[in-house]
């Protein structure tokens, strides 16, 4: 669930619309890429 090796210089944020749940604003972390983390069993 967690990745505590992150630097998290810019904490990831995801602001949503309360009524619809739609994305309002994304603040990506410097650690994030666009691929998603690998699924792990």
């Amino acid at each position, binding site marked *: 669930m967690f990745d505590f090796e992150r630097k998290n210089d810019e904490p990831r944020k995801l602001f949503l619309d309360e009524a619809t749940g739609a994305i309002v604003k994304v603040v990506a972390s410097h650690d994030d890429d666009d691929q*998603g983390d690998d699924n792990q069993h």
Partner: protein
Amino acid sequence: MKNELKLTLFAATFLVATAGALADDQDPSHVRTATPIKHLVVIFQENVSYDHYFGTYPNALNLPGETPFHASPKTPKNNNLIAPLDPNNNFAPLAGVDLINNNPNGPTGSGAAQNGAGAANPFRLSPAQALTADQGHNESPEESAYDNGKMDLFPKFVGTAGPPPNSPPGAVTTKGLVMGYYDGNTVTALWNYAQHFALSDNNYTTQFGPSTPGAINLISGQTNGFAATQNVFDATGKLLHGTHEAFGDASNSASNVTEIGDGDPLGDVCSNPTLDQVQMAGRNIGDLLNDRGITWGSFMGGFDLSVVNANGTTGCARLTNPTAPGTFAFNSVDYIPHHAWFQYYKSTSNSTHARPSSVAAIGQTNIPHTKTPDPANHNYDINDFFAALKAGNLPAVSFLKAAAFEDGHAGYSDPLDEQHFVVRVINALQKSDAWAETAVIVLYDDSDGWYDHQMPPVVNPSFNPVVDTLNGPGVCNHGVQQGRMTRATPLNGAFGQPAWGRCGYGTRMPLLVVSPWAKKNHIDHTLTDQTSVLRFIEDNWLRHHRWHVEQHVRLRAEER
């Protein structure tokens, strides 16, 4: 998988927890923790199975007029209706299984004859059908629906017909409604959080049954053993409410009784005086946090009885109407006593709902800078959570329960009103300075009875002849799943003897971790249950202290 467990949410044992909390400085940012997490916010919602909310994740139908959802093409596989995986075989895809069109609960399935007119394959509920009838979720019928692992008798044992919602499909007007699921056009927020943070597809209730066992398991892991009761036994010692309490052994001893249903907390001014009320024996995680001087709080909708709602309701009768369109079965009062986890323990209760001495006192045992106990004793209204957050006084550990209309429980709440609450909390946290050190866990108290296709691993057997039906009359003892053999003897209750009534794990539910430290767009298969939250708190703040661990269901996970 074993190594992964240690690296993920619930077992930070690879990290060295050094000094404990500083008794003279309760600022959570200054307290030594085993991980970078200084604030944990547990959002404990109501009555959802995994497949009810994530049965087709990440594929949404995206019909015109609905809130669209589009997933990353890199979204990992998860164990659901459209792509079932095998937890007993390293989550490999299950070949030849079509749960959507040839479900065991459907007209061609193994349960068809017994399900009768309610036999139905899973079907999509639209956003316009957010309002539904409540399904059955008492312990015994839930076990019966699982039918010795065939998972094929949900309509018969826990199905409740609508309307609401109105058809199509026709199944909604039968007990087949229990097979309904939502997709990302309704539970859009939760699917978006899953895309950007982490989602578990192998998380279960600690035991079968409704809200109260879930709430108690979340904070103590022990639903057996009462310190005091009211209206639980008749004059001859028999149980008055067989769906709420169950004897823990064949001798029907009053000292070995398990809470399997929704008895009210003893002494709460809002508890129903005519129904059963119980006070649990033993301790809970609040006691342990107090021992170390760690700040914590329970924040519940409707807890402040002095508030007057816009509709004029107040006290224990405070009530807020849901906003989703339609006519609900009933509109619940905001505060539901049988959800009030810490009220079941004398040491952590606030039976009169006394208000905290100040916003600065929220999370504290004593009034700041004094040795006088704060009147609230760590129990607050949900409004106090936002006030504390705004004041920069977010406790280290916060347990949140929405007002009833936003808790997601079918019958009086719904996924759209639930979404309002969850998003409001997480948006507020992300705007705060605490966010960089915060983790939010969203999980549920029970499944409501909604269909889920995954048989749980039974880690704690039970042989109560009145309640248990999982593998036959009086038997909850399923054998081997996910590499574990069910123990021969039930785990001990609060007074040290094996205790029936905790058949589990129970139903599978979503669990999301929303945090800057969460993996991104991650599906986690680590086996967890409601008490796994306890373990994380113990690992992060309490130097892995395990209290009465021999009594906990989670013992099985630790034995690996």
